[in-house]
């Protein structure tokens, strides 16, 4: 469903993504782990068509994102770190607005309400203005949109950062339901433990490169943390090593 072929992106001299090959099947959750600047968000933006690749291709359901971004986005739902809604509209009206943009037909109030309730938005909050919604609540509206659109792939950019543990757990439950419904999920996150819990596959990224992929079922949380820290430590030593060498020269 989500597929990248030797995907690279440079900003001037800086290589933000380097030769990424990725394939995420329906019903699979792929978690990208890595420090800031590892290339996670760049990957998501390339898959959305927000950025043009320097080389390689990004495909959604076999559609080249650069050639037909709208067709690709019809199959995608994107959840940024901060889902922002129109504060002057209610949750139901926001869902109506965004579902309307996506061309979802038959957006009756009953159906909209149903989608929101499936996503866990409390009935009392549905008609309330979104300006008072918490981050967790806004994400539930986004999940409701995913349900309404029957999105076949989800791109999540650090969706649980800043959420309290209860909201985070609830979000991941909703995510698993989407996965079970057949969605392919690509999630960028810093949350190693949640990633191991929900992911099918985990990718460790650094400096725009996918260093290692692991089956989540094959590693424990502690092992994953150990591996992650090792990769990051390698990064630190590899960047500091030349300085040492230079200093050591007479």
């Amino acid at each position, binding site marked *: 469903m989500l597929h990248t072929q030797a995907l690279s992106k440079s900003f001037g001299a800086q290589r933000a993504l380097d030769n990424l090959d990725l394939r995420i099947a329906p019903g699979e959750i792929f978690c990208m782990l890595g420090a800031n600047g590892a290339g996670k968000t760049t990957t998501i933006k390339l898959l959305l068509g*927000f950025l043009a690749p320097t080389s390689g291709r990004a495909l959604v359901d076999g559609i080249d994102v650069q050639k037909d971004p709208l067709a690709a986005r019809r199959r995608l739902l994107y959840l940024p770190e901060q889902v*922002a809604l129109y504060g002057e509209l209610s949750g139901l009206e926001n869902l109506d607005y965004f579902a309307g943009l996506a*061309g979802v037909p038959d957006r009756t109030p009953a159906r909209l309400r149903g989608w929101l309730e499936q996503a866990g938005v409390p009935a009392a909050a549905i008609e309330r203005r979104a300006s008072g919604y918490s981050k967790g609540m806004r994400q539930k509206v*986004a999940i409701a949109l995913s349900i309404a659109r029957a999105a076949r792939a989800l791109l999540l950019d650090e969706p649980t950062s800043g959420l309290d543990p209860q909201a985070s757990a609830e979000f991941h439950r909703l995510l698993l339901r989407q996965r079970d419904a057949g969605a392919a999920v690509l999630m960028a996150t810093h949350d190693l433990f949640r990633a191991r819990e929900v992911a099918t596959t985990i990718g460790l990224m650094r400096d725009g490169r996918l260093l290692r992929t692991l089956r989540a079922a094959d590693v424990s949380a502690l092992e994953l943390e150990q591996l992650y820290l090792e990769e990051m430590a390698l990064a630190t030593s590899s960047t500091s090593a030349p300085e040492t060498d230079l200093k050591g020269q007479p």
Partner: protein
Amino acid sequence: MMAAIIRMEARRLLRGRWLPLLWLVFFILCAGAAWNGAAWVEQRESALAAIQADERETQRLRRAQIADEITPDNRMRYGGALYATAMSLRATLAPGGLAVLTVGQAEGYPMAATIHAFSASNTIFDRHVAGMENPSVLAAGRFDLAFVIVWLLPLLVLAGSFDLFAHERERGIAPWLLSQPVSPGRLLAAKAAARALLLVLPPVAILLAVLVAGGAASLAALSMAAVLVALYALFWLALALLVNLVAGNAAQAALGCLAGWLLLVVLLPALALGLADLAAPPSSPTERVNALRAQAMQARAETRAAGQATAPRAPAPNIPDSLRRRALEVERGEGLIRTAAAPYRAQDERRLAWLDALRVASPAIALQDGLERLAGADAARALRFQDQAHGFLLEVRALVGRYLAEDRLLTTADYDAGLPRFVMREAPLGERAGALLFDAAVIALSGAALLLAARRRLGRTTTFTE
């Protein structure tokens, strides 16, 4: 799908309560300006009615003199009313069909002319240059509908659209919005269309309502006013759209829109006027009056010198020869005046041509010009009236010349048959429509240029979703 987006965007905009408030403020401004305009029209019509009543009363008195007062005995003493030179006529310029729109340049030109056969053509307007009825206008500017539309309507449109997309970028809604399967161009077009419905149509409807309430009845003129104003409002919407593609947040967008308003409404019209002053300065009225008066006096002196040499006729004609000499003097003076006036006229025409060409500098100038033409308060109409009043003067002189040549006296029958009357012939429809269409084209093409720039910017931008 576009219709659905427009509907939802309109609903979102209406949810903010500021929009009806803007409409209300605009309505109050329009109503106040229309009130002012209607008062000015009423004042001018009263002044013109008084001039016409004066003409009728003068003619009635002269006829009564001929019928009842002049006898063979007192004819030498009071018989002036019998001479065709006694015809006292008026030419008046009525306010245009949509005069309530703007006073425009109407107060800078005469509204009537007093026509006597022996009046020098440079003096027929002397008593009828209206001037401003209220000196405070000099200090504060005129508050008429054209001012509200040209200066304040853009602020209304910009107040409702300055954050057309900057709002989404600032609040972080943009990436999520643009991740939906809708092209940025179509999304922005829908957002602009929703604002066009809410920020262009209601003001145009308000304007038409106050114009009709102010007495405007010409459907064609009202339609043209609606088209011009709608195009102007759409131009400002296009500007807001372009600014939103450049600005990173709502504050930058607001500043950009305000700078655009200052440039196009305040600065460029002032610069255009300055350029016209440099390239074709206006002629000095004082210099012109003095020059023409000198020519008239010279003609009089020359003719009188020639007249002293001629011997009185016997028997004396019905009309004294002194009037014939005066006619010659006027005719000679007219030639000198025409020659002396030609450079001033050419200077004025050159200036008008410059001002006409400078309409393209800003849609605000083009709209002001269009509204003045619709109101009949433009310089071209005023000069047309002056030309026709001069033409009427020459007709009257020719008629009087025939009376002098035939030594014929005026009779009550002449008054009963009706003395010559001035009828203003407006510019042909094609000429007027052409000028208005040019104004409309300037505004529309300026808007189209902004849309093209917005389209190019949209195609180029890579950080649109940041």
